[in-house]
Structures are given as structure tokens and as C-alpha cells.
């Protein structure tokens, strides 16, 4: 970080907005760049989101709770959260393993498998849902009766998150502590458990949280493979779509607001983890 220069550049040709007054900004173009940014954000994000919140506010709290606590909606939340949690745990375990293998070991086609990890990021969700639904049914499972297919698809969708958050940390890990532990007689597993993993913990948790958040809101891939029976195998986003199709905007908003609240909580948790990590450093 360069220190601020001792001479202050007065007469900076920038915006005069009081609350956004830039300090010591010499470069031109702040006004126009900031103006366009704020305009775009307002039109695309802020106004629509405000619309959602206002609509949610228009519901009486009675209506709100009635919608949220109706058995179908509760079941949908249960399915969404449960499947997402399970998928996140699977990704947490295998993601850690895959990251470890990619960083620590060399084997033929390692780069190829490393590139494979990014596929769920790039593959459109409809394709993922389609092919997993097909594989699932040809393997003999009936996805109308079991929610395991949802977990499978959510695992696919969240696969890169844990691996890609843990991999850089693992790579940057200095071997000093490990070597010290080994020289003091620790077994490999003990070294992993007490020396390596604590250093990976924040990144691993962040990856888990990201995978979980992604899985909760996932829609495109799940609707191919879910039984979509209300009360049993319907995910929360599907409930929202059903309500929208019936033009029950208020109820759809209620469900969406809860989903949004959950996502934002997870986002805050991730930021909290990052803040906690930085404090530890």
C-alpha cells in the first residue's frame, strides 16, 4: 500500500457529492464512472429489490406467518435445507480430499482432473439436471419417491466451491509446521488433524457455506430430478414458482423473503469467517 502523498492535490476534478467526496483523487472520470455504476445498480438491483421488500411489507404479519407455516411450504424448506446440507457435507468431505490430492500428489492426468473441477461452474444447470435425472432413472432409482437425486445434483452443483477455496490455502501452506511436527514424532494423521487442518479450517468453512448457499437456491438442475410432489419432494424455489403460476404474488414473496434472509445470513457468516481469519493472522 503506498502512503498518501504529503502534498494534497486540491482542485481535484471530481464529483462534488458531499457524502461521496473523494479524498486526493486526481484521476479523472470518477463522476461518470460512479454515475453510470449507480444508475445501473439502481435500475437492475436496488429498485427491484426495494419492490420485493415493499411487497413483503405489504403482507400483514398474519398472512406472512400463515404462508410460511403452511405444511407444504415447511416441507419445501425442509427438503431444500436438508438436501443442501447433505450435499454441502458431501462436498466438504470429498472436496477437501480432492483439493489435498490435487495439491500434494502428482499422478497422470492431474491437470485434466483439475480442469474437470470447474465444469459445474461452467455447465448450465439445465444440462446438469437433465443428465443426472437420466442417469438416476437408468440406474434404477425412482426419483418420484426418493429425494436422494436432489442431493446428487446439489453435490454436483456445489462441487467446485470447497475445492477451489481450500486449494489456494493448501498451496500456500508453508511446510515448516508440518516438518516440525513430524520431527517431534507426530504421526501423519495427527499432523493433519492438529497442524494442517486448523489452518485450512476457515477456507473450508467458507467453501462449505458457499456450497450450502448455492444449493439452497438451486432451481434449474433440481426440477429435472425432483419428484416435485408438494409436501414431499418439492424444493422451496419450486414452491415460489408454483405460487407465481397461480398469481399468488403475496405468498410467493413471503417464501422468497425467507429464502433471501437465509442466503444473506450465510453471506454474513462467510464474511464473519473471513474477518475472524484476518484477526487470527
Amino acid at each position, binding site marked *: 500500500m503506498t502512503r498518501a502523498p504529503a502534498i494534497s492535490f486540491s482542485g481535484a476534478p471530481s464529483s462534488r457529492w458531499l457524502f461521496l467526496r473523494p479524498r486526493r483523487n486526481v484521476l479523472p472520470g470518477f463522476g461518470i464512472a460512479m454515475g453510470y455504476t449507480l444508475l445501473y445498480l439502481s435500475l437492475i438491483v436496488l429498485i427491484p429489490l426495494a*419492490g420485493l421488500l415493499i411487497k413483503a411489507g405489504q403482507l400483514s404479519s398474519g398472512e406472512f406467518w400463515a404462508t410460511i407455516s403452511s405444511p407444504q411450504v415447511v416441507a419445501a424448506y425442509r427438503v431444500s435445507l436438508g438436501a443442501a446440507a447433505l450435499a454441502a457435507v458431501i462436498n466438504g468431505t470429498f472436496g477437501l480430499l480432492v483439493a489435498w490430492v490435487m495439491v500434494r500428489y502428482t499422478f497422470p492426468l492431474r491437470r485434466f482432473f483439475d480442469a474437470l473441477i470447474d465444469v459445474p461452474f461452467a455447465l448450465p444447470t439445465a444440462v446438469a439436471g437433465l443428465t443426472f435425472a437420466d442417469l438416476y432413472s437408468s440406474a434404477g432409482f425412482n426419483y418420484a419417491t426418493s429425494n436422494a437425486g436432489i442431493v446428487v445434483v446439489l453435490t454436483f452443483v456445489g462441487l467446485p466451491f470447497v475445492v477451489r477455496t481450500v486449494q489456494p490455502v493448501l498451496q500456500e501452506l508453508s511446510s515448516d509446521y508440518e516438518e516440525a511436527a513430524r520431527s517431534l514424532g507426530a504421526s501423519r494423521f495427527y499432523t493433519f488433524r492438529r497442524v494442517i487442518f486448523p489452518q485450512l479450517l476457515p477456507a473450508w468453512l467458507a467453501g462449505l457455506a458457499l456450497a450450502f448457499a448455492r444449493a439452497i437456491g438451486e432451481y434449474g438442475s433440481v426440477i429435472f430430478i425432483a419428484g416435485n410432489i408438494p409436501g414431499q419432494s418439492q424444493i422451496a*424455489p419450486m414452491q415460489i414458482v408454483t405460487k407465481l403460476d397461480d398469481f399468488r404474488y403475496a405468498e410467493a414473496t413471503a417464501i422468497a423473503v425467507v429464502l433471501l434472509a437465509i442466503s444473506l445470513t450465510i453471506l454474513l457468516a462467510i464474511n464473519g469467517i473471513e474477518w475472524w481469519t484476518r484477526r487470527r493472522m
Partner: protein
Amino acid sequence: MRYVLIIIAIVFLTLFVIVPLANVMTRALSAGVDAYVRVFHAPEPDTSIPFRERRQETREHANAQKTWSAIRMTLGIAAVAVPLNMLFGVAAAWAIAKFRFRGRALLISLIDLPFSVSPVVAGLIFVLLFGRQGWLGEWATNFTWSWPTLSWSGFEQSLWPIAVQMERHVGIIFTPLAMLIATVFVTFPFVARTLIPLMEAQGTDEELAAATLGAGGWQIFRRVTLPNIKWGLLYGVILCSARAMGEFGAVSVVAGHLDANNTIPLRVEQLWMEPAHGVHAAFAVASILMLLAIVTLVLKTAVEWASRAQSVTSSRA
């Protein structure tokens, strides 16, 4: 021990990535290469043959038309959404990375917002805004706009074979305009998120030097900033396009299950839900998306490689 771990990792990746991808191609070609091609290109059968005999060809022709209109819709939306988002990304990154102001962190979080919102909720937001009972419902239902549509007019009439016509539309929700806005919402962070750390890491030194040498705003941007960020910009644009073309949830909510409002992912769902087309149809269209994903990954790797090569040579210089 290490071999066990390696094998587990390889098996996991094979099961979850290679097998599904291979399945798409296998299923797409399960009815033969001919059927695969006919999903996209089925010439209109001769109308002199009685309908009973040309029923299948007619159906295939109609389906191929619908599939092609879905492809055109997807490309059209991406062609508008990506440049808009690119402009936004550059502007936002310029404002955020090169200047210090209060509320910077909030702005960055706002830009990250679409990532934490479920696509269905994103679609819902716009339905609430533009829908009949929505906030701007009155204005939105009577809003007219024109959209250029491209059609192939052949080389007979003029040298340029693509004809452009302006089509008028009314209303926002359940039209391509809403689909465009929903796509923009879901994809606008990509370019900004790639550029902001990049431009922050590059700092303001070079731009300040240019300013002291008398360069004006656009000159600084064009001659100093743009060459430095070109790989990051390309990377962001690649991710943005891939996501724009593959987006399903938000577009599905806002398109209203209308045949005219199909994009490629929506067409995949439509073909899957109607087994009369044959299993291979949905997979054939899905194979385009899979190809898109593979091209995206290849381009992404190429850009990463090129930018690393560039930074190595510039640091050596």
C-alpha cells in the same frame, strides 16, 4: 495411503463430472446421428404428400423451427446483456479500484448481491416489479418497445444475407425484454468482480504518471488502463457470456412458459417434459450447452495462461 486417496478423488470426479457429460453425448446420439441433426435442421416436407404420411416430418420441422428460435433468442439476449454488463463492469471497477470514497465496501457487496440470490427469487423480483399487479404494472403492461429480429434472406436479393426487421412488442413481463433484464441481473457481477481486484492490484501509479504527462481521461483509459486489464476483461466477458446463455431459473420465471419465449435451457426442459419427441431431442439441444461449457473452460484456461505469460514477460522487462 496416497494411492487410496488419489483413487478416491479420481473416482469421485469421474462419477460426478465425466459420467454425466459423457451421458449427454451418448443419449444425444442414441437415436443416430441423423436424428441428432434433424433436431436442429429438418426441412419442410413436400406438401403434395398426404398429411398422414408426412406427419413425422412436419412435426420434426416444427420442432426444429422452435429449437432454432430458442437458439436465436439465447444469442440475442446474450448479445445485448454481455456488452451492457461489460460497460458496467469497467465503469464500476474504475470507480471502485482507482478511487477512495466512503461506502466503497457497501458498493462491492451490492455488486456481489446476485450471487447470493436464488435465480427464482431474481425472476420473482422482476415479476413483482413489472407484473400486472406489480409496482410498475400499469406502466409496464402498456410499454411498447421494438426489438430487431434477424432472419436469413439468402443471397438472391442482396449481398448481405441477413435481414433485420424491427418487431414491436407490448408489455415487459413475459416478453424477451423481461428475460433480458433478468439475465442482466444475474450476470452483471462477473465482469466487475474480475476487474476490481485486478485493477486494485495494478494500482493508480501508471494512470497518475499518464495524468502528469498531460493525458486526458479517455486517453488514460484507452492507452494505459485498457491494455493492462485486457485479459481480465476477456475473462470476465467469457464467464458472463457463458452464464447469460445458460441461465435457467430467472429466465424461466419471467418468460411465462410461452413457446415464443424459449431460450436454449428452457427448450431443453420443454423437450424433456414431452417424451413424444424422443429422448434424444432434449439431449441434442443440451449437447450444444455442453459444448458451450467446454469452449468456455478452454477459453478460460487460455486466457489464464496468456495473462500469466504476459505478467511474466512484463515483470522480466
